[in-house]
């Protein structure tokens, strides 16, 4: 790949990356009651990593994030299937989720939902698949 010397992007990304990832986590958790969720959050995280890929090159990014994205996809799938298949043990229809309000220290009253775990699976699958696709296309060049 041609070595680019893009000083503005390289400087900006160091700050921007954290904002994008933070915002993607916010979007992911907001998906509980508001627009958002694992899919869109995952896409945003993948977007952040792609921005890294554009600024630096594949090898550098692999050094920063030594993740096998295919395995990540598998973990996400197992998470999503596992949380939905949990309903089998309680003999309620597949995908039925449980939720409840819990009193936590510092955070106060929080409503927790097993659907969030399912969404985490979706999040991991989306990041994994998007990055696998982009890496495969990138390696071809």
């Amino acid at each position: 790949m041609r070595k680019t010397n893009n000083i503005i992007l390289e400087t900006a990304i160091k700050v921007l990356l954290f904002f994008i990832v933070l915002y993607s986590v916010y979007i992911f958790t907001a998906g509980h009651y508001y627009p958002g969720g694992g899919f869109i959050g995952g896409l945003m995280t993948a977007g952040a990593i792609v921005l890294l890929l554009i600024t630096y090159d594949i090898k550098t990014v692999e050094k920063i994030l030594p993740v096998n994205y295919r395995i990540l996809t598998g973990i996400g799938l197992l998470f999503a299937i596992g949380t939905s298949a949990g309903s089998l043990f309680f003999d309620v229809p597949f995908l039925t989720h449980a939720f409840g309000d819990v009193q936590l220290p510092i955070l106060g009253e929080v409503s927790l939902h097993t659907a969030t775990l399912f969404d985490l699976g979706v999040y991991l699958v989306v990041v994994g698949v998007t990055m696998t696709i982009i890496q495969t296309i990138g390696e071809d060049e």
Partner: protein
Amino acid sequence: MTNLIILPILIPLITGAILIFLNQRITAQRVVSTISSICTIIAAWFIIQKVRTEGVQSLNVSSWDAPFGITLVSDMFSALLVLTTSIVAFFCLIYSFKSIGHEREKYYYYAVFNFLIVGVNGAFTTGDIFNLFVFFEVMLMSSYVLLVLGGTKIQLRESIKYLLVNVISSALFVIAVAYLYSVVGTLNMAHISSRINEISVNGMPGILTVIAVMFLIVFGLKGAIFPLYFWMPGSYYAPPAPVLALFGALLTKVGVYSITRTYTLFFYHDMDTFGLLSILAILSIVFGVIGAIAYWDMKNIIIYNIIVAVGVILYGVSVMNTASISGAVYYLVHDMIIKAALFLLIGVVISITGTSNLRKISGLINRYPGLGWTFFIAALALAGIPPLSGFVGKLLIVQGGFEGESFIGAFIILMSSLLVLFSVMKIFINGFWGKDRTYGVEEKAPVKRLLIAPVMLVVISALYGIGSESILPYISQAAETLLDPNIYINAVLKE
């Protein structure tokens, strides 16, 4: 157990996810896939028994009541197809062990294989028209991978065609579903049926006929009916034998199932669309037979026989009386088993000879009598010689045709049987009789190991024919549900 009917979808799905981690460990992949495949067969068997004793089963996924959530429905028709799919998948899997090669196995062959079964079983089980689209996509995505995996030139070329055709038909599918939703305002199949029933007091509105034809185009593209089969002979020719067997036995049948389901459940008010279906079915038979006779390539001959079978089944559906529908259901199951067996047998022949061109092979029966006679029995079963399984299905369909006073179709089916027999006997006579030849590649082929799967499938097919007396109650229960949509509607909406 509440979740019984989702198990044939869930087990392959979990297996597929686990296999992603095991992609470098081939033995582990084989063991896990085999276990999961057997579990799927057992689950499907229990579903059939439950449907037999307790009637149509439905499951409101995520505890959202029908018609608001997604519903899975298992009536006898879908349960039979799920069991057949699981059995066919099991044998294709066993066959893959010895033939597919380490390269493919390391590149997620078994994982994708399982995802394909998820899609097929899901499409058979779902009771929601949009969810049907989703499972179609799961199935198609997996089939793209299986088609292109290996990356030979012919595979890449045919994958592009296959992808284009299916992307277009998927787009049409969504458009058709959107039209249907704008007319009836629901996606639950039972609910759609009862709504259409309400608005069709004085005959079905014209817009629904348009939607019916759109569905026919969409599913016809997948199911390869005339004139939409143009993509199939090329695309199915490309992949290796076990993948070809899976495609030939399962994928087109999903299209046939969807046509049967939508036409018997939604559009039964308008006999004109059934007339169209019947004409297309008969033309499929005619053109399929012409193709099957014309080719000198074993793969092509059997691929064109798929088109014939699709025509025969859909003709049975279009006549729409008890005998013809029972025949269609019976023949559908028969055809899934026997097509898988034939494609696997051809795979064995190709592994011995290295070619599928009939002019280049002869005299195989001298050294491989087991292969020869298995092929002979499979060929007879395909053509419908009693007491093998093709006979009962065709008999019922032809009987239905005569009862429905649709003599031309019934006559063409009878004539086509002869020509189908001729086309497969051509393979037998040219490929197995005659002078023995050497081919240079045969020392490597583990023929005996490879033969296990197709022989078992032929045995199952023969038992299915001989034991048809004890299977018919299941078939007629399936036909009963297809002919009376109220059974289906009541089971889902629990009115």
